[in-house]
């Protein structure tokens, strides 16, 4: 390789590939897949802003950085209890620290019958063949630089399966913790969640971290919901202030499957989440609500890509964002209705508050419609708090800053009000309030 156009980030990933002994090495099909994916990544490079899905998120700065391939001490690092979400303290949970699965912190005993939850590396050790379909593809049309990298370098993840007809009570928690290490580290996790026919499950995914842990987490998750399955998903992202978090969640719904999706984006320096929802089955339904509250120089990008493929499918998305200081919030909500997807009903609604002269909001709803028996709507607004409402609060004695906080909280809270159980909802609201308090100090 010539040194002329060396990108430090790409170089550090290439050397990671050479240095790491990754799970499943020795399996010929997996080794070949990883090798091919790495080649594709090197050829492809990091996503550029001319890629429409990365239009408002530049990784030019990231390209100049290098990351350690792993945190060797991750298996033993103590984790501050305060970082841990209280919600996850009593339920079953899988915990990763700096990208390494921690059985000591996880609680996978006493899982209900019909629920299988293990780390991807141990699942692969036990029985590689069923995972070949998931892990054996070196690339896909929808890939970008980071998903290719994930195919090449995934080191672990979660495999969660719920058998047909099993209704799991109470949520399972997946917790990703980032703590300070000897060097800024990059990790790549790959997860698989599969719900059998008529299975029901609730998952809460947490991202927490220490402020000074400038890691890069690159997570890919595949979710499959079989007929009539129902999944409640809540993602609570409060990664450390220096963290880079890149997530791609790919969800496929079969006939009559339903997905309720909530996201609260509060942390990280650069946090991007690409959520691809494929309403493949007839009458499948997807409802999502999300909010981001950003301050300082935070950058958050949500790419919500919904494909209506089956007949009589439904999607509704309501997302809200707040950007203060020098923060930048990016939202892209695309509804694609394929030919033949008659009866599709899709909606995407995005409202934003811009609170500072140096902040920026870029919102981009899109409709791509190739069928005619459809209803598709979208709306997007960028504005600020209503002066009249602000005055009303002040005239009742509430100081300006507090009045602002009350209104911003109310603006975002709308997206959280359907989270169950109520204790989890309260937890999310409390985090929101905490973030607003930090923002105004």
């Amino acid at each position, binding site marked *: 390789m010539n040194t002329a156009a060396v990108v430090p980030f790409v170089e550090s990933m290439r050397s990671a590939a050479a240095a790491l002994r990754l799970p499943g090495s020795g399996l010929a099909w997996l080794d070949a897949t990883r090798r091919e994916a790495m080649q594709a990544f090197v050829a492809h490079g990091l996503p550029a802003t001319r890629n429409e899905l990365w239009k*408002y998120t530049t990784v030019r700065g990231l390209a100049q950085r290098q990351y350690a391939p792993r945190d060797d001490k991750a298996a033993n690092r103590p984790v501050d209890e305060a970082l841990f979400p209280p919600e996850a303290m009593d339920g079953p949970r899988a915990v990763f620290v700096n990208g390494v699965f921690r059985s000591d912190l996880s609680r996978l005993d006493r899982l209900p019958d019909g629920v299988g939850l293990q780390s991807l590396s141990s699942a692969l050790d036990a029985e590689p063949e069923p995972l070949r379909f998931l892990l054996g593809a070196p690339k896909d049309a929808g890939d970008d630089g980071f998903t290719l990298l994930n195919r090449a370098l995934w080191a672990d993840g979660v495999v969660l399966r719920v058998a047909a007809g099993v209704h799991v009570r109470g949520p399972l928690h997946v917790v990703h913790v980032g703590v300070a290490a000897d060097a800024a580290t990059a990790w790549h996790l790959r997860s698989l969640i599969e719900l059998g026919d008529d299975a029901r499950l609730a998952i809460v995914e947490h991202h927490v971290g220490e402020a000074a842990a400038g890691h890069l987490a690159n997570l890919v998750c595949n979710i499959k919901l079989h007929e009539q399955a129902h999944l409640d998903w809540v993602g609570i992202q409060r990664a450390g202030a220096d963290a880079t978090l890149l997530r791609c969640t790919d969800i496929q719904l079969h006939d009559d499957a339903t997905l309720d999706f909530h996201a609260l984006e509060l942390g990280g320096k650069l946090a991007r989440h690409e959520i691809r929802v494929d309403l493949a089955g007839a009458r499948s339904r997807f409802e999502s609500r999300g909010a981001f509250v950003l301050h300082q120089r935070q950058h958050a990008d949500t790419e919500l890509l919904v494909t209506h493929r089956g007949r009589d499918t439904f999607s509704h998305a309501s997302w809200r964002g707040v950007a203060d200081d020098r923060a930048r919030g990016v939202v892209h909500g695309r509804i694609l209705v394929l*030919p033949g997807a008659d009866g599709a009903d899709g909606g995407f609604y995005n409202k*934003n508050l*811009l*609170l*500072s*002269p140096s*902040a*920026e*909001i*870029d*919102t*981009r*709803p*899109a*409709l*791509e*419609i*190739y*069928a*005619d*028996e*459809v*209803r*598709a*709507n*979208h*709306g*997007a*607004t*960028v*504005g*600020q708090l209503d002066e009249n409402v602000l005055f009303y609060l002040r005239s009742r004695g509430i100081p300006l800053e507090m009045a602002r906080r009350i209104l911003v909280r109310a603006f975002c809270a709308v997206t959280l009000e359907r989270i169950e159980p109520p204790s989890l909802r309260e937890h999310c609201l409390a985090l929101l309030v905490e973030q607003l308090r930090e923002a105004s100090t």
Partner: protein
Amino acid sequence: MATQSSEVQAALSRRYEAGFVTDIESLSLPPGLDEDTIRALSAIKEEPEWMTEWRLSAYRHWLTMRQPDWAHVRLAPIDFQAISYYSAPKNKPKSLDEVDPKLLETYEKLGVPLHERAKLAGVAVDAVFDSVSVATTAREQLAKVGVIFCSMSEAIREHGELVRQYLGSVVPQGDNFFAALNSAVFSDGSFVFIPKGVRCPMELSTYFRINAGHTGQFERTLIIAEEDAVVSYLEGCTAPMRDDNQLHAAVVELVALERASIKYSTVQNWYPGDENGKGGIYNFVTKRGECRGDDSRITWTQVETGSAITWKYPSCVLRGDRSVGEFHSVALTHHYQQADTGTKMIHVGRDTKSKIVAKGISAGRSQNSYRGLVKVEKGAVNARNHTRCDSILIGKKCGSHTYPYVEVKNPTAIVEHEATTSKISDDQLFYCRSRGIGEEDAVSMIVDGFCKQVFRELPMEFAVEAKKLLEVSLEGAIG
């Protein structure tokens, strides 16, 4: 639905009424493009040296650029060396009375009021036939109040300083691939100058017509409204039916100084190709207006029914404080047409406002996209935008797409975008039919109602034409 459609299966297939060829002797440059072509073109047009140089520098820039491929469009490759860059009727008329009667007949067929009818209608007309402007009416009347309305070629000769000051000041030579090509080879177009304080006493209008085969039409229009000036300008376009694709790459620049108002309306009916997607015009147009002065206003209104492929985003740069930009659009596509159109509203000044209303109708196997940008720059305090995009689909094989981009960098701005897409309402259709209205008529009635908000923005005689055009374009759409 199946029974509904079978009833109208026998509906007329669509006819393109402007699809005749006029047999007129013309003088054309041989196909091909290099610096010599440009020099020859410039020489034929007796242009001053600076103009020739301006063209050449645009050409050199163009050579460094690549044809864009980003839009949602299927496009046969264009051979820029196979196009003739100049075609003019051989006997160049000096006045309207000397205009070739066949040419006048052509405009007659198109319904362009060139003669006395123009005066009656209160419209001044400039007609561009292939590459040159053949007649401009009502000049004297306009000259009395100081309005200049003439062909671009004449403006370059007679009003060189004005042209030189404003040409390329809104759409720079290298703005995009087709604008650069236009800057190098533009053949003619209209020039309008409304001096300070003058309210133009009549509607100004230009009809564009591509007649010769293998020609491209690259017209260039420049409209300048000085302080407190007011003007309304209309543009209509047609072309004969031909099996190959012809290129139309125009550039339109509008400049509004303080308190000036420019209203620019287009009815675009270039040949769209036949029902199998053969032939038709490639309409790649750059239209941009700059509200340069405080309190100025630019309004774009367009009815797009023609062309095989349209890329067109009439835009407003709202530089002056309190300036206002508006965009009203109806885009109808049928058969294999592809339209990718919308607008850009760039808010730079304080208290600037923009409004966007876009209506899309897709039928047949066509693809119809709205693509728009609303950008609020840091200094655009209290900027306001409201955007409304509605699309209807007629039939199962067409596509309708909406791609708005909203970028806001000022915390006092309020930007609102809403869009809907649905098929033409069965309930409305049924209601009309239960009252005895045939399905085709019901469809035109509903589509007309759907577009009303935009038609209202057109001058009266254009609104009638636009409505008729929509009806003709929709023939055979139900099936």
